[in-house]
């Protein structure tokens, strides 16, 4: 009776000691020195392994920061505070990237954009493009099937009414969604509490844009003329606001006949 308890206990203990010894031996024998700083920096980084910095993940960026002391290797997701902390650990000043946020330069939801046909194929923007230019008449519009959604690691994008929406609180500005959009309606802009932008990327002439959609930029130039800060330019039949020069007075949005200039309140910046 005692044997049936004693034998397994003793044998397992012996095995554990032997194997433990092996582990100790191997870890001593094959020890690779790793800078403890890398570990420290990695824990400070956001840890999403999104790849927006250009490295495969956060640990690799940390290694690059520690080994090369390269001040240009910056995590675009981390805020200034985090980067300052990392700088403290490394004994250098890291400024950190300016916080960016993604914006959709299109307002062509199903309600305002003219529909061309019903689409029954694969629900992906790139797949729809193999057949025709999306269900919207405008060739520059957001196709609205959500190819960008898969690219986002932070769940900041959502689809509703045939248009992509961005949750400004969740978006970290990693820019991974930008290259996934076949019509390139996504754009990174700097975060600021108040921001006016042109929510249209149509490069066609005004009369064509008017045919496509009710809220497109028709290149009438009224905003360019009225802007007190001279911050608006026309590029390829579409207004572009220079965010550095913009004073956020809102005159452009008031004069825009198609309401294609939109004001965004940044949820994070407004909180500050």
């Amino acid at each position: 009776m005692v044997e049936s308890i004693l034998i397994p206990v003793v044998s397992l203990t012996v095995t554990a000691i032997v194997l433990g010894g092996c582990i100790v031996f191997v870890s001593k024998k094959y020890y690779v020195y790793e800078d403890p700083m890398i570990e420290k920096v990695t824990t400070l980084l956001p840890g999403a392994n999104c790849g927006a910095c250009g490295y495969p993940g956060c640990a690799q960026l940390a290694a690059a920061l520690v080994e090369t002391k390269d001040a240009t290797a910056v995590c675009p997701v981390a805020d200034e505070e985090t980067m300052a902390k990392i700088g403290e650990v490394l004994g250098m000043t890291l400024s950190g990237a300016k916080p960016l946020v993604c914006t959709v330069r299109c307002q062509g939801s199903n309600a305002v954009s003219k529909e061309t046909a019903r689409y029954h194929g694969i629900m992906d923007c790139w797949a729809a493009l193999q057949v025709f230019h999306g269900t919207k008449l405008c060739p520059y519009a957001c196709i609205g099937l959500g190819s960008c959604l898969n690219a986002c690691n932070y769940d900041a994008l959502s689809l509703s009414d045939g248009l992509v929406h961005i949750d400004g609180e969740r978006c970290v500005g990693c820019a991974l969604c930008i290259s996934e959009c076949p019509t390139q309606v996504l754009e990174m802009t700097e975060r600021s509490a108040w921001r006016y932008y042109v929510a249209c990327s149509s490069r066609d002439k005004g009369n064509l844009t008017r045919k496509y959609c009710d809220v497109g930029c028709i290149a009438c130039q009224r905003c360019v003329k009225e802007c007190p800060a001279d911050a608006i330019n026309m590029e390829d039949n579409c207004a572009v606001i220079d965010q550095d020069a913009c004073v956020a007075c809102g005159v452009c949005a008031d004069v825009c006949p198609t309401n294609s200039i939109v004001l965004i309140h940044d949820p994070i910046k407004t909180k500050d």
Partner: protein
Amino acid sequence: MKTFKRGGVHPPENKITADVQIEKLPTPGVVTVLLSQHLGKPARPIVEKGDIVTKGQLIAEADGYISANIHATTSGTVKSVGERVPAPNGIYAEAIVIEADGREEWAEGLNCDVDPGSLSRDEKLKKIQDAGIVGMGGAGFPSHVKLNPPKDKTVDTFILNGAECEPFLTPDYRLMLEKPSEVLKGLEIAASLFQKDITIYIGIEANKPDAISIMKNYSRGRSFTVVPLKTKYPQGCEKQLINTITGRTMLEGQLPFDVGCLVHNVATIYAIYEAIAKNKPLVERVLTVSGMQIRNRKNLSVTIGTKIEDVINYCGGIVGDINQLIVGGPMMGRAQHTFDVPVTKTTSGILFIENEKLESLRERACVRCGKCIVACPQGREPWLMANLAQNQHFDELPCYGLNDCMECGSCTYVCPSKRDIVHWIKYGKAMAAHQKR
């Protein structure tokens, strides 16, 4: 009867317009000539708004070697240059719009008889290039490039493709019946660009016995061999046709001249005849207007640039509802979303279809039945490519013959789960290219 080695399907033939004579559709008041009706770079416009043009005048010149000239398809005034209009391939493309004056006046020196025998090889090639002739079966590859293979390749077999395996379509069949001597003269001209002892075959599917007998009659005393082919889709595809007639197999990435062959379809050969013997550039083509939902189903000789709207009006309008307007054949054609799409050099048919099941069709999971593998004429595994594309493994796709697939649609046709296999493969091709970039 001869046929290709692997795969193939038998869709219902539906050649409703087989007995309808080719009619000339009068040139509409406005023609929209696209700048890109071929593979390669779009042509560069050389006219301006307000210019008066005559029929056959060059209005946009080829931009580079793999490109094709575009001519005014009627006489009149240029209304706009570079305007973006819906194109049959689903995108918006630049076009030249001409307001017709109704006189159909040919440009100087065109539309006259020329003796092809008096021209040298280079002159003939130059004329084909100037006439803007492209493969009119659907791909639109510039013919002067195809007819002038690299010096190190020898072409010993010339094949006239009269298979016309797509259901509904009959333009090539009607051309063979109504213009047999012209088509064969065109074939002689095209073959004269090569060495004397080149073997010439005419491949025609067995469901067109009239065309086979008429071609046999007309080729008497000439060195053409008419080959009846088993009716099976995609018999008219270049790779399958070469395999059927010569027994040679094109490997992945190979072009027809790599196996010593050259394939031209009937419409292209007819255009070559017109260009050389009649001095006419490519300004009109024969196409089939068919499908259950159009009042009069016809074979029409249409001025390039005519909008589908004008074709519908000429054919008596649409009967009932349609939910699919297809340009090309039902297997490889493209669904359109507007009647404003103009006819191009490669439009071989316009189909009006009401598919009741379309709204309720939803693709289901692959059941691994293997029907698509049996149907694939290239001997590939379409289900695997579709599933890989669906699961975003784009880098693995080329290992399974992604670029060998010519999107013939046989797999999608046989799939019991109604999977959009070809669409997934097209998506995979686009994404593989996007990721490489």
